[in-house]
């Protein structure tokens, strides 16, 4: 079986899944199993396809499909394969998650979900594989946009979801107009030219056309990825409206297709367009846009009380990191210093690495948000707390995911941020822009930490309503957890096998022809399985080893444990001390709206003030808080 036929098989099973949903409308149980089975099948096929391309002896797949008078060029090179891999992994988790999640939420109507979801995935896969800005792109884009519009639209009651979905649709259509329109700026462009051809034709166009071309594409894909301020306009609303497992795909992948588009434009089309592309200008644009996005997005995330919105804002911030890294890679490549030039590819790898990482842990976090929604029915952090004792597994997974996204030592977020920031500083030694933006990125890392301390702390630890929740709230079904454990394992592997992933990305770049940085310079990244080093030939510039860090902490933790238990102290369970008059009740919990209040006020100018959290009218929603002052 060739890869190509596998590709068609993938589409076939997707369409079949969609078709089955139409037939099995009423037979919900059959529909769930059949839909899940077919979707899983298509994901597995996709994984096989990507692995056979990335694997030993693999090569890019390029083919054309004729639809009427249009030629649709397809290209599955290393980069596409990498993102397809991410797509299939996330989809797999999301589909398994849905299996039980939908049962609780939508009753008989979830056939619509199984009708649209395959099309959405198809759209995403299409976007990652088409190689033009014309008919193929349009087809894939519209498939993705309309299907995701419907998914968002059906995520919550019409009253709440109509507006976000519409806004989403409008922005996506505007982006589509810009992207498809941009290609007409290239001299002699024919609707349906492949990307490489567009680049070559652009090289013959005037300088202003080139600038306009890249601007339109930057805006188009920028809207998609959520660059400031576009992201703020649609992302939070859309992500908090769709079902969590859909949001997990939206944040984990839909944004990444935007990143993918940016990479295709600024690192592939740019190369073929030659002198028409100004790396200095576009590097600066990307860096500035990225830094602003990452800072504003993350600061706004801190202000949110709706944990799904918090995750949405935070994914704007995280994508900002990727855009920043792409820009700084361009700048480094353009630099006159040989070291910086060769660091460019390291920074690029960091950007791709962070895309993969973010895809996984943000997908995981949205699924965990789904757990919370499933178990408690509320999306308001103010009303949560103390869930660790009733949902221990979810809590543990949330701890790992939050830990990873905060980039704490020995986590996947740390590896990619380390790669990004250290190489950025090394490359930008003499560049004020790079150094200062690197500092902002570091500064924002602290905000990310604050954000997830809040998410994890207020949902799972803290006092919250734990005594109240204990009565009715249980751990979610194992299928939900299984999908999350699957993602957690991948997340951990990203943390502890950095070199493996770097090699994978390296290989995928090697399999992608027409890569801008392919002859940037020597290979600075080295390292064994568990460690990464940046070495310039003479001296070690930077090094990290997550596993060693973990080992160090655990070893010292044992020391600390021995020290603290050396006198064999007794341990007693006591209630929290509230100065002796009040007992812990719903009113004296320091809830989410209070946490970091001064910091929120201090950064009022970043906007994104939280809206009142509206919980859907759902039987699982907690009864309203008790009469004030009631002490239990």
């Amino acid at each position: 079986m060739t890869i190509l036929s596998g590709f068609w098989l993938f589409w076939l099973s997707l369409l079949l899944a969609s078709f089955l949903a139409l037939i099995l409308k009423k037979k919900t149980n059959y529909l769930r199993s059949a839909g899940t089975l077919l979707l899983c099948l298509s994901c597995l096929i996709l994984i096989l396809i990507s692995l056979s391309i990335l694997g030993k002896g693999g090569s890019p797949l390029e083919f054309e499909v004729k639809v009427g008078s249009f030629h649709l060029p397809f290209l599955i090179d290393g980069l596409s394969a990498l993102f397809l891999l991410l797509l299939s992994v996330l989809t797999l988790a999301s589909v398994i998650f849905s299996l039980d999640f939908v049962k609780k939420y939508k009753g008989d109507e979830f056939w619509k979900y199984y009708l649209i979801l395959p099309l959405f995935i198809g759209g995403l896969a299409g976007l990652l594989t088409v190689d033009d800005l014309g008919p193929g792109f349009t087809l894939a884009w519209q498939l993705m946009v309309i299907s995701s519009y419907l998914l968002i639209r059906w995520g919550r009651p019409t009253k709440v979801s109509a507006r976000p979905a519409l806004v989403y649709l409008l922005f996506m259509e505007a982006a589509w107009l810009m992207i498809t329109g941009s290609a007409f700026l290239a001299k002699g462009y024919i609707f349906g030219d492949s990307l490489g051809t567009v680049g070559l034709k652009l090289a013959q166009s005037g300088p202003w056309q080139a600038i306009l071309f890249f601007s339109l594409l930057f805006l188009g894909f920028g809207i998609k990825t959520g660059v400031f301020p576009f992201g703020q306009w649609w992302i939070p609303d859309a992500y908090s409206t769709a079902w969590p497992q859909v949001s997990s795909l939206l944040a984990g992948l839909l944004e990444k297709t935007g990143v993918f588009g940016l990479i295709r434009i600024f690192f592939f089309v740019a190369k073929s367009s030659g002198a028409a592309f100004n790396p200095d200008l576009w590097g600066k644009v990307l860096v500035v846009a990225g830094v602003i996005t990452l800072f504003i997005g993350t600061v706004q995330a801190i202000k949110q009380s709706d944990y799904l919105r918090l995750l949405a804002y935070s994914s704007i911030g995280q994508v900002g990191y990727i855009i920043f890294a792409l820009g700084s890679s361009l700048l480094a490549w353009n630099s006159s210093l040989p070291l910086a030039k060769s660091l460019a590819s390291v920074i690029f790898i960091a950007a791709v690495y962070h895309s993969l990482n973010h895809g996984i842990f943000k997908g995981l976090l949205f699924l965990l948000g789904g757990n919370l929604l499933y178990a408690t029915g509320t999306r308001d952090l103010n009303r949560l707390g103390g869930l660790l004792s009733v949902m221990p597994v979810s809590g543990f997974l949330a701890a790992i995911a939050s830990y990873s996204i905060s980039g704490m030592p020995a986590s996947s977020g740390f590896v990619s941020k380390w790669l990004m920031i250290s190489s950025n500083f090394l490359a930008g030694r003499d560049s004020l822009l790079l150094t200062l933006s690197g500092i902002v990125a570091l500064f924002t890392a602290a905000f990310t930490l604050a954000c997830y301390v809040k998410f994890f702390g207020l949902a799972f630890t803290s006092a919250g309503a734990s005594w109240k929740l204990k009565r009715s709230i249980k751990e979610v079904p194992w299928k939900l957890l299984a999908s999350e454990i699957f993602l957690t394992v991948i997340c951990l592997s990203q943390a502890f096998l950095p070199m493996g992933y770097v090699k994978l990305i390296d290989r995928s770049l090697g399999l992608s022809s027409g890569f801008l940085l392919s002859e940037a310079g020597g290979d600075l990244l080295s390292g064994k399985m568990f460690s990464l080093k940046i070495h310039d030939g003479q001296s070690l510039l930077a090094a990290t080893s997550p596993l060693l860090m973990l080992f160090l902490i655990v070893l010292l933790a044992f020391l600390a444990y021995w020290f603290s238990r050396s006198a064999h102290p007794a341990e007693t369970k006591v209630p929290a001390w509230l100065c002796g008059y009040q007992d812990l009740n719903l009113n004296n919990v320091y809830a989410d709206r209070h946490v970091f209040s001064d910091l929120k006020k201090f950064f009022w100018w970043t906007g994104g003030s939280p809206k009142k959290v509206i919980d859907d009218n759902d039987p699982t929603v907690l009864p309203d808080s008790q009469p004030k002052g009631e002490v239990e």
Partner: protein
Amino acid sequence: MKVVAVFVNLIYFLLLAPFLEGVMRKLTAWIQSRKGPPLYQPYLDLLKLLGKENLNSGGNWAFRLAPILSFSSMLAAIALIPLTGQANILAHSSDLMTLIYFLTLSGFCLLVGALGSGNPFAAVGASREMMTTVMLEPVLAMLLILGTVRIGNFSLSAAVSGVAVSRGGSYFLMLVVYLLALQAFAARQPFDIAEAEVEILEGPYMEYSGPNYALLRYTLNLKRMFYAWLLVSCFLSFILPANFLFSLLLQTVLIIVVFVLISLIGATHPRFRIDQALKYYALLLILALIAVGLAVKGW
């Protein structure tokens, strides 16, 4: 030798840190016309706490694990540092980001533990501590990045020694910033806002007792000593002799001097409010940013 250096780091900090608290208490007492406790009192306090009952109000693993992880990640940070400018075995797989994140992790664990205790006072304290971390961690990072920018190497020993390589405008500006931030790093007045015992009763530490509290106190002592050490070895590295023992001795003396400074400032200031402190930290951030900018330009 390079392996031994790790242990030297740990032992040096573990032994000296409580003593420095003793120095601080004695000096503060002198400013307040009091006798003050003997210098070895902090050691006795730690021993006493080890034997006390461990009260657990959180009832979850996050609360129990927090002090242990906080202590161990602080120690992990200390294990990395190039004491007297000499890199140890861990330098091959760590750099300044590792250090910064270990330090952050230590504070992060405390916060998770504080939130895990379920106490609103601890939550207020945790919220304040986090705001402080958010605003101050970049200042620390910028100090080390200053060294990186000078030397062009991301490793910790380069970052530490790089700060004082040339003593131009950026050096002095950064020194000023660091001195202004010192009290906040050391969590002493006027910046002991997160602990503020009169309003939020030691904030994050509130629910901890016995050995768990001993670990957190020890962590605090180590943290203070670390920041004092950083001041000495970043800004005064050029006066340290080459001989390891002499250098260590001089460093110790200088660290004590830094603690004298901390005590003097601490004893002559009331506590700031968090909103006032945030403005102050923002000023520090901007100054530090300017210092790094100057360093990039080669000044």
